[in-house]
């Protein structure tokens, strides 16, 4: 019973004084979930589990869970860009995934997330590869990700889910006949997408003067700074974002993060792709 009692006391303390709670852990060089400052949570990627989508992926990053499906449709290209298809990524943070969110239209956080993902994903697929008939017909790829469990670092998990779902996507092969306006698709033949880049994001947070890798939902609201580093398969930078101040003193927090991210990218690549 004594240990139950202590666990309850710790939970109450965590709820009432989250900053002090995390401070005490950081002073001991550990984080509440038992990781060290530069430790990452386990990642698992499961592709092709949604049969109604053209490509899908389920990603778990620790407890954070994201499902992503890709649906391909036909559309007319825009007049000013006859040789470009469409890639439309959206993230949904439903009320199911965390008590932070309310039902209704996308929250500010979901909108910002979708926008950042859109910028990164635009490097993955050349839009010209989605053209069926120039100026007439192109593919639209709807890439919809939904968060099932929100336990921090959703950006990394969502990007991984979207990239894995796109790699899993197979488009039905369009059959173009001459003298025929209509394009039909083969029921049996499929073609994979042309993926130019495989960006993976690694995020960090600064708590007081400590750099924490892969922050959880408990740590995220306590961070002074969040940093995301997106790298492609050559380990070159695709995007970097830093929200908030750097570390005090001379230390260059951004280059620390970039080198840590490069190491992580290599080990992650072996594990999941």
């Amino acid at each position: 019973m004594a240990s139950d009692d202590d666990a309850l006391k710790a939970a109450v303390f965590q709820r009432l004084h989250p900053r002090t709670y995390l401070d005490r852990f950081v002073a001991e060089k550990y984080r509440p979930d038992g990781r060290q400052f530069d430790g990452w949570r386990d990642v698992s990627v499961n592709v092709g589990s949604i049969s109604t989508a053209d490509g899908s992926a389920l990603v778990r990053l620790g407890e954070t869970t994201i499902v992503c499906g890709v649906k391909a449709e036909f559309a007319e290209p825009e007049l000013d860009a006859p040789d470009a298809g469409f890639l439309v990524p959206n993230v949904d943070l439903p009320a199911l995934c965390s008590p932070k969110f309310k039902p209704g239209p996308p929250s500010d956080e979901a909108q910002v997330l979708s926008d950042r993902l859109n910028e990164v994903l635009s490097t993955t697929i050349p839009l010209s590869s989605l053209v069926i008939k120039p100026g007439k017909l192109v593919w639209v790829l709807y890439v919809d990700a939904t968060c099932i469990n929100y336990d921090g670092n959703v950006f990394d998990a969502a990007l991984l889910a979207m990239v894995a779902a796109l790699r899993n996507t197979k488009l039905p092969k369009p059959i173009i006949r001459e003298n025929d306006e209509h394009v039909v698709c083969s029921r049996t033949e499929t073609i994979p997408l042309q993926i130019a880049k495989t960006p993976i994001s690694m995020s960090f947070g600064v708590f007081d003067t400590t750099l924490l890798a892969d922050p959880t939902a408990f740590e995220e609201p306590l961070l002074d700074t969040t940093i995301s580093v997106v790298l492609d398969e050559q380990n070159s930078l695709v995007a970097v974002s830093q929200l908030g101040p750097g570390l005090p003193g001379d230390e260059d927090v951004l280059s620390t993060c970039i080198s840590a991210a490069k190491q992580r990218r290599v080990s992650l690549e072996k594990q999941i792709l």
Partner: protein
Amino acid sequence: MDRRRINGPTEDSFGPVFEADEVEGIWTPADGRKDRGLLDIRPIFLQPGLISQANGSAYIETQKTKIACAVYGPRQSKNTAYSETGPAQCGSQVHPILMSTPTRASASLQDAEDRSVAVAIHQALVSSVRLELLPKSTIDVFITIIECDGLESCVAAGSIAASTALADAGIELFGLVVSCAASLVENQVWLDPTEDEERVSAGTIVLSCLPALNKITNVWQTGQMPALDVLRCMEACQQKATAEIHSIVAQALLENAKI
């Protein structure tokens, strides 16, 4: 045009058109069921407690149908008039992800169908919860349909998941609600119909019951059926729910509690 989302082409997009050539193996009821008998349900995988942020949660998978459910609460009701003993409210919301059906739903419009599914699940659950113990509070039940194979079976699976999640949240219940769907196909009762089977059926019912009290909490019937056939379907559903599904749910909760 919805400025809160990333938008696609300005003109509407449409699903690809497939060749109309000889398609083999379009399913007809005469083919029967290959992998199970008419009175068998699809195997159920049920995992409580998958969503760590929620007070209670459950994930259910019956072959293609995949549903996640989270329960938040009981929490304080806002904007309710003061009452000494006023019972709690229990709200439920169903939210299919855009990929759950073969055609992608429009993102900005919440389909009228979601509402009716939410109402059906709400009705199935509400009489099992001891709301009188929780005055002035709200329990939110959120359901996300990841993939749907048969709407009525989906309602049944959603009710099971929601009841499991309520139990996982430690909310006092009169009993577990279990639910089963049945279709009348060529004058035979087919339990747990898939999308294809529902399409060819004369009518479909979803029955939710409380096996602990031997009571029915909700019946939802669509299509056309003579009253006697409705009763036949209901009996088959109730028997299956009481005999099999209830013990699956109880077992899943028990195993989760042990860990």
